[in-house]
């Protein structure tokens, strides 16, 4: 058996070319079990293409992809049994009723009648459309159709979910409901959510992979990005009650402090500086202010927001891509 214990999804040097454009170019990333991965990128970056390759809908031009231990190219059917895929805009058969559609999908995925009925009830509860189970899909609003799509992805209880822009076209209430439904699913399931909406990644995901023009430009663990004091990030000191120049030179004199930037008006100065690797400078700053009788109004580390990192990563990639411009496809 080809089953391995981790990672759940492994993508190695994935490339997908179309006539005239390289949609995915040497992508490398992996997803461990239980992660909620935000697959982030501007429109046209290659997110949908990558998801289609992961789900076995489209073959790659080169590279290897394995999901739940099975190679997507060689054991496509096994992969498809273990994933729930929700394509963008949740395409459904409009003429069927909700439960009719879900029962049909359950049969396609190999569920027996008893199991299908049981799963159907649970899945309808989970996405909260039990009251609409007899409705014809054409008559549902976009939000409900999206939920039916999610129900379809969940019906066979797969370990991996691939969701392409699951909140696109939904109103704020529906977005909130969809997001909470998704967060409830982890850590039992591994989720990959593709989106171009930064706040969505911040709200729902614990890991992120950023793709831009077909290349992975950033991957990381969001928990470290978002919370707490990051010792490697710039330190921000808000001060009062002292001469700005004095404060500045005193701060510069602290061991490990590099160039000190001054922002803000003279009576409410904000100093920003980077420190050498390691070490928490906060105590030293506090003591300094205490000794000199200055008022320390704020002391934080300016950990970069996801947005800043995103712009940095994609801007850098833009530059890189244009430099390599003439290489052809």
């Amino acid at each position, binding site marked *: 058996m080809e089953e391995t214990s981790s990672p759940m999804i492994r993508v190695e040097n994935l490339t997908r070319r179309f006539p005239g454009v390289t949609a995915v170019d040497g992508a490398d990333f992996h997803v461990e079990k239980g992660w909620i991965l935000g697959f982030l990128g501007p429109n046209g970056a290659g997110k949908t293409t990558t998801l*289609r390759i992961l789900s076995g809908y489209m073959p790659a031009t080169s590279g290897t992809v394995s999901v739940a231990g099975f190679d997507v190219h060689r054991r496509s*059917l096994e992969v498809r049994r273990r994933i729930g895929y929700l*394509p963008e805009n949740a395409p459904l*058969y409009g*003429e069927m009723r909700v439960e009719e559609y879900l029962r049909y999908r359950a*049969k396609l995925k*190999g569920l027996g009648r008893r199991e299908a009925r049981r799963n159907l009830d649970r899945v309808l509860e989970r996405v909260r459309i039990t009251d609409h189970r007899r409705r014809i899909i054409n008559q549902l609003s976009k939000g409900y159709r999206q939920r039916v799509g999610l129900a379809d992805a969940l019906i066979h209880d797969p370990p991996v979910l691939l969701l392409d822009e699951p909140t696109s076209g939904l109103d704020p209430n529906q977005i909130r409901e969809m997001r909470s439904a998704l967060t409830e699913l982890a850590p039992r399931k591994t989720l990959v959510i593709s989106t171009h909406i930064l706040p969505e990644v911040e709200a729902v995901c614990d890991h992120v992979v950023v793709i831009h023009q077909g290349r992975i430009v950033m991957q990381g663990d969001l928990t470290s990005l978002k919370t707490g004091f990051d010792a490697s990030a710039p330190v921000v000191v808000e001060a009062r009650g002292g001469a700005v120049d004095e404060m500045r030179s005193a701060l510069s004199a602290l061991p490990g402090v590099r160039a000190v930037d001054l922002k803000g008006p003279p009576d409410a100065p904000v100093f920003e500086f980077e420190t050498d690797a390691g070490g928490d400078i906060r105590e030293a700053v506090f003591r300094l202010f205490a000794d000199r009788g200055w008022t320390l109004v704020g002391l934080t580390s300016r950990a970069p927001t996801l947005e800043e990192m995103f712009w940095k990563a994609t801007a850098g990639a833009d530059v890189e891509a244009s430099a390599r411009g003439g290489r052809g496809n």
Partner: protein
Amino acid sequence: MREGETSPEEGALAPGSAGSVAEADASRSSPVRLWFRATGALVGRELAAYFKSTMAYIIMFFFYLVTGLVFLNVFEILSRPGTPPTEFPMLNWFMFTLFFALTVIVPAITMRLFSDELKTRTLEPLCTAPVTDFQIVISKYLAALGFYVVLLAPTFLYAVILYSTAKPHPPDRGPMVAGYLGLFFLGSYFLSIGIFASACTKNQIVAFIGTFMAILVLQLVYVFRRLISLPWWKEFLEPFDFFENFMDFGRGVVDTRHIVYYLAMSALFLFLTVGVLGVRKWRL
């Protein structure tokens, strides 16, 4: 939390289970059973979709209208005093009509099969379900064939009436049954062409026209054969001369060569359809 505990009853969505459906199910149902369950679901869904569509009823309306009129005509001609009681030309006339009715009916039946899925992008969830391309194609084919049979079945009544009211004695039943058998296999062939055409385009109208043209050309081969007097032309086109083949059925001759031919051509176009699906995924 019941980590890892998955009894066959509770397994599916119980807390703590990380998704054991694939494994649990594989141990309970054989692959053959699963294959039929999935394919059966596909065919069932496709058939239901036919009868929920307006197109089906439009097809049925016009088809029954035309065949009804033809039947009336034939019946009236045969009822005139002095008409020689020959069953062959009578049934031939009926079959002739049905033969050409296929040109319009088959494209109408098959036009939506793949084109609609391509247009509304429902092919994506279909192809990412654990079913093979072959299952998808064969199920659409079976559904189309099923609808075709349901469509044709009531006209059998006309044939029965013609036969049972013939005087002074009812003629041989052979040609009647053979005729419909011929229609069935010929239908299978043309339907498979239609399915192929449908898979080639997102646009149902284009699929219709393509299928219509293809069937028309095939049917008119016998005309071409007779109009053009180049010697090799006649020989060359002989295997494509449907009318003769089909009229064998009309005469009551069930020639298994013809059946094999029709089935083989159906298989060919179904195979080509699977191929087109594959090409789409590569190019998309």
